């Protein structure tokens, strides 16, 4: 190597070293975006905190337990609204394609404030009362969620294909948008099918 080539090596090395030691100061002026995807986790677990043993065959005046949970990966703290709803087979679920929630009224609500990277989980107990069966129909008058009684008066027709009177307990995730100053549906829901078997 001649002297000019050595000089190029020295200048390049000096510049690289200079950039390395200046990096902490440069980070104040050049924000490095993480580039990671922002999302929320949403889950429903069985009574053993596992994705198994979900209640399915249910009857009146029996208590059931599941766990609902949220994980925040949105890059900052978030206010969530976790909304519990109840439907029969003919009523509408949220529309994942349109990103719209179910038009059914919310029954029970959890308000959750969660830091980025943190998770939240809470028990969701439920029971039914005022259950009756007439011919090919079943009627649930009351749904008790976390000891709170809601009058639902929900009818279900006999499902001959799956042999049962089917209802669905589902939970929607809503997120508070600061810009619009209101909760908006976060296009996530989880639910379990329930077969009403007895009074």
């Amino acid at each position, binding site marked *: 190597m001649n*002297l000019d080539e050595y000089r190029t090596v020295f200048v390049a090395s000096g510049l690289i070293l200079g950039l390395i*030691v*200046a990096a902490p100061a440069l980070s104040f002026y050049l924000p490095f975006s993480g580039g990671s995807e922002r999302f929320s986790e949403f889950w429903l677990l069985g009574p053993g905190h596992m994705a198994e043993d979900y209640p399915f065959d249910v009857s009146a005046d029996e208590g059931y337990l599941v766990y609902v949970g949220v994980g925040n990966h949105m890059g*900052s703290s978030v206010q969530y609204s976790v909304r519990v709803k109840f439907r029969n087979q003919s009523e509408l679920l949220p529309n994942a394609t349109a990103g719209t929630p179910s038009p059914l009224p919310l029954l029970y609500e959890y*308000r959750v404030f969660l830091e980025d990277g943190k998770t939240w989980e809470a028990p969701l107990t439920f029971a039914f009362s005022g259950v009756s069966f007439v011919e090919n129909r079943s009627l649930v008058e009351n749904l008790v969620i976390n000891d709170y009684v809601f009058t639902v008066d929900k009818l279900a027709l006999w499902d001959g294909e799956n042999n049962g009177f089917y209802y669905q307990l589902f939970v929607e995730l809503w997120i*508070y948008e*600061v810009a619009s100053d209101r909760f908006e549906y976060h296009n996530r829901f989880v639910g379990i099918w329930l077969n009403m078997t007895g009074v």
Partner: protein
Amino acid sequence: MKGFAHGLRILTVVLVVLAFSKLAIIDVFAVVGESEAETEIQKAEAALSSAYVAVLEAEKNGADVSGLLAKLSSGGNFLAEARMRYRNDDFDGAVYYAGLSVESIEGLVGETEQLKALAIAEHKEGFFLTVTGSGVAVIVVVLGSIGAWLLFKRRYFEKVLEMKPEVVEG
């Protein structure tokens, strides 16, 4: 007898009027209860939202907001309870829980401002130390590189001058 019948008629009219006015009074009270509950819930909702926005602002400035979020969660749970009671026509309960929600986040905005100010001060201090440290380090690297280059160049020339020309026979 005629006087008695007249008196009875008047009494009936008075009773009917009283009965209606009582119903009207009850109805008015029920409406007041509902609207009051709604107002209290909206107040609590607004208080919670502004506290949340303040917490987000503090978080953006680098404040540790985990304690504040715990308080907000408590306020949020009370508000959810108030809304559930409102939907079930328990307006007294709704007003009570809306009040608890506001109470549980009282002073939170002030606390948030303090944390934010602390975080900004820490950020400024960190910024000053980092920029100063980096500046000094860059100067050291530049001067060191120049020094190393001059030393290297001198050694290079000395080495070149010490070299003996090689005679090649033709």
